[in-house]
């Protein structure tokens, strides 16, 4: 497991994606989910968004993450909140789920950390006809110097950094018919962490990773931002 992902897991950082929980909430003022929809939160982390969706829309939510500690923290959250969210350990590139299961899939800075093309195809597979995929993902804003790209890939364990246009192509190739951009103020705003679920023992090396990440955030400013797309099959 990449150390940056470990950092998110050990510190139990809620809504670890660009824009944080406030961006998620603002998106769901525009995008709505029906009560009888089956929703997948892929790469759910500690489950802050899954909790929000289950409460807000009373829909059925399945939350999947690749990191055992995230799964543990998410399970604890739903038990405590007494919410019927199903939490599974799983790999976004290869889900142990039947085709055409979900009406709505949410990926909040998750696909970027996987082999994007495989993952988008896999998500398209488990999505019903006319289903929707909402993604908030890292995106190249301008040409990225090769050395910077390599540093980003190494620190975050990402395989590639796509432009908005490249994200569109990946979605189209996977069979998404329409792709709508949800307008947000795409800048890397550091926001108040409104939620942390710290593990009792946190490896000191992860504090170094946090520092490296902070430096990197400043360095990539103007080169890497994020996109928010709502893609429909």
């Amino acid at each position, binding site marked *: 497991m990449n150390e940056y992902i470990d950092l998110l897991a050990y*510190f139990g950082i809620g809504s670890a994606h660009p824009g944080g929980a406030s961006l998620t909430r603002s998106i769901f003022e525009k995008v709505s989910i029906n009560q009888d929809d089956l929703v997948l939160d892929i790469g759910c982390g500690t489950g802050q968004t899954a909790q929000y969706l289950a409460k807000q829309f009373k829909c059925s939510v399945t939350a999947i993450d690749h990191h055992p500690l995230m799964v543990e923290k998410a399970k604890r959250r739903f038990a405590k909140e007494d919410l019927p969210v199903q939490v599974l350990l799983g790999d976004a590139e290869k889900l142990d789920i039947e085709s055409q299961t979900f009406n709505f899939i949410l990926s909040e800075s998750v696909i970027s950390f996987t082999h994007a093309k495989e993952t988008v195809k896999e998500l398209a597979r488990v999505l019903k006809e006319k289903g929707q995929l909402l993604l908030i993902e890292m995106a190249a804003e301008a040409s990225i110097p090769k050395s910077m790209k390599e540093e980003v890939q190494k620190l975050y364990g990402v395989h590639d950094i796509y432009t908005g246009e490249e994200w569109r192509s990946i979605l189209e190739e996977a069979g998404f018919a329409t792709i709508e951009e949800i307008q947000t103020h795409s800048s890397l705003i550091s926001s*108040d*962490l409104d939620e942390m679920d710290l593990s009792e023992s946190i490896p000191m090396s992860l504090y170094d990773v946090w520092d490296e990440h902070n430096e990197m955030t400043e360095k990539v400013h103007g080169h890497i931002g994020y996109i928010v797309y709502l893609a429909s099959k």
Partner: protein
Amino acid sequence: MNASEAYNMCRRYHGRHVRITDRDGRVHEGHITRVDRNMVWIRPQGGGGYGLGWGWGWGGGGFGYGIALGAITGIALSAAFFW
């Protein structure tokens, strides 16, 4: 996190806005203003925050209030950007 690790982390984040959790499950937020071998002092911003009545020794200025290093279970920067 033991007291020695807490000391090192407080030194590292001196002057920065942090979020500290303690053994009683309380969360303290503020700027680290002072660290010694036993205590860290944080000055909350605005008067938000929760968990403590910070009447003693803190009147909107100075070092803020102290937290015993041995009571600290976690420290993290309280504002950050994450992918």
